């Protein structure tokens, strides 16, 4: 039987605020356990949560970026369950009237195909603490530094029909929240977490199959692998006469499999109710406007602008705008005087390759966009050839100064003076009579030999165009 895959994703993006969503404790990663957990986070009696303005603004930016409905009022609710890393016995979340309502996101698939994925809602909530199950004499250790960290939970419609679409959607959300500056996107540190709901149904059938929810996925590669495993498992199960049970399953990356999480099964009755400690949040037009003003150019807009303003292919524009630092670097290189297509190439290939090799990020690049732009200008005006440019690039990388001073110091200026080139060519021709005869007898491939000899004599500094032109003239004449 042919099966159709149905996937919906829930993304938890940790918001890049300084303080927690309901308290003034820091959310900086990596602090000593429990040094950033204040009495509000610990749920001491008598404390009151006060909402962080920046968390609201960040959620609004996301809502605007996915063209979502944003209501004038939003309310917080208590989601009740017991777990040691949740000190209050409830998580402050949103149920009715989430801050961000229905929206949509367009994802890009292979060969320029696009698909619109519905976003059901995005709501604000607080994160829980961390349980450490290493052995503390049969006890569990609890670190509540993370408790109260602001999260935006972004829920998609079950609109994805393949694992590829699911990964493309997750990547696009990741790109968007990082562009917006509302999340650092660090998946290893848990700043961006993905839960996936997957079900199968016979191709052409309307009603959805029973879904399982996959948790504990902390990279895009693991998302793909977890979904692959789960899809196979469900198909095998159904085809051998079994039934999928609705449950939460944990992805184990070491074994590359998903496992049932029994403890969560009976806990799915959260008895949400409006939190009496928090008044309804009013989103007035001024706040929404301010959020809109504060939004950067989004990846799709940037890509379209790169295509039209810089005359780049859709593919190059897409790759350059993949990350905001790379897009910014490219623009600064062009601003420094580089030709846009040349700049696109050098940023992605030469610079990208060198950074990769050195294990560096773009913001730690030893070559600044101004330096790269200066170098590319010298290729464009024929001061140096593309080949010599690679040498100059390496020298700039090593800190020998900008392009012009490296070219000067190393004497790399291209010889464009045709008189000088002609003299060298005459010498090469005089020194290689045998090859000249063979060339004239029809062995035209030997042109490469002569170009090579000239380049050797000039240490690669002769303009290749000029050399070719003069050589052909002399050899044929």
């Amino acid at each position, binding site marked *: 039987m042919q099966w159709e895959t149905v996937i919906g994703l829930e993304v938890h993006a940790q918001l890049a*605020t*300084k*303080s927690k969503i309901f*308290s*003034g*404790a*820091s959310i900086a990663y990596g602090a*000593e*356990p*429990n*040094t*950033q*957990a*204040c*009495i509000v986070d*610990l749920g001491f009696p008598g404390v009151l949560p*006060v*909402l*962080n*303005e*920046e*968390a*609201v603004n960040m959620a609004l930016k996301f809502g605007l970026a996915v063209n979502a409905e944003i209501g004038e*009022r939003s*309310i917080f609710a208590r989601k*009740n369950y*017991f*777990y*040691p890393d949740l000190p209050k016995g409830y998580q402050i979340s949103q149920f*009715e*009237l989430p801050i961000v309502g229905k929206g949509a996101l367009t994802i890009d698939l292979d060969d320029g195909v696009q698909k619109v994925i519905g976003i059901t809602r995005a709501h604000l909530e607080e994160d829980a603490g961390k*349980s*450490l*199950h290493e052995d*503390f004499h*049969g*006890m*569990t*250790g*609890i*670190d*509540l530094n993370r408790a109260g960290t602001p999260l935006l939970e972004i829920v998609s419609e079950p609109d994805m029909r393949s694992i590829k679409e699911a990964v493309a959607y997750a990547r696009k959300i990741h790109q968007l929240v990082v562009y917006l500056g509302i999340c650092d996107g660090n998946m290893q540190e848990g700043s961006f977490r993905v839960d996936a709901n997957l079900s199968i149904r016979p191709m052409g059938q309307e009603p959805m199959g029973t879904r399982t929810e996959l948790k504990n996925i902390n990279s895009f590669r693991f998302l793909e692998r977890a979904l692959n495993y789960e899809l196979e498992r469900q198909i095998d199960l159904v085809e051998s006469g079994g039934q999928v049970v609705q449950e939460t399953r*944990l992805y184990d990356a070491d074994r590359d499999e998903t496992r049932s*999480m029994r*403890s969560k099964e*009976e806990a799915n*009755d959260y*008895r949400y109710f*409006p939190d*009496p400690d*928090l*008044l*309804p*949040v*009013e989103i007035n037009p001024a706040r929404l406007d301010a959020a809109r003003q504060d939004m950067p150019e989004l990846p799709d807009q940037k890509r379209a602008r790169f295509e039209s303003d810089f005359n780049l292919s859709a593919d190059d524009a897409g790759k350059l705008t993949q990350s905001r630092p790379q897009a910014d670097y490219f623009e600064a290189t062009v601003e420094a005087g580089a030709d846009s297509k040349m700049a696109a190439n050098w940023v992605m290939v030469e610079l990208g390759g060198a950074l990769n090799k050195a294990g560096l990020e773009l913001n730690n690049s030893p070559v600044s966009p101004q330096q790269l732009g200066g170098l590319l200008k010298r290729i464009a005006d024929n001061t140096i050839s593309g080949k010599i440019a690679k040498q100059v690039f390496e020298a700039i990388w090593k800190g020998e100064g900008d392009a012009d001073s490296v070219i000067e110091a190393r004497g790399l200026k291209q010889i464009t003076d045709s008189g000088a080139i002609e003299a060298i060519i005459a010498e090469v021709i005089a020194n290689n009579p045998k090859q000249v005869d063979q060339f004239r007898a029809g062995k035209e491939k030997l042109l490469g030999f002569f170009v090579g000899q000239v380049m050797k004599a000039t240490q690669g500094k002769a303009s290749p165009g000029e050399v070719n032109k003069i050589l052909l003239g002399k050899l044929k004449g």
Partner: protein
Amino acid sequence: MSLDHSDVEKIAHLARMALDESQIDAYAKDLSNILGLVEALEVADTDHVEPMAHPLHMAQRLRQDQVTETDHREENQSIAPSVETGLYLVPQVIE
């Protein structure tokens, strides 16, 4: 609306309350009576009443995003039953 024996068992479990088997039916009766009392509101005409999330007609005040709390781990942990290397220790939770 009334609650039966199994409803009470479920609520007690969700609230992590240990109930004596012999008390359950009495609780079912008492809780059903409370629900009955609230049910009296059903007769009120609420067609023109806006649903309310909070009894106060005010909006939530927002806080500036600033770190204002300092580390009070030692004081906070002084009342905890068990602490080690800065962590609160609790009976093991098995996944």
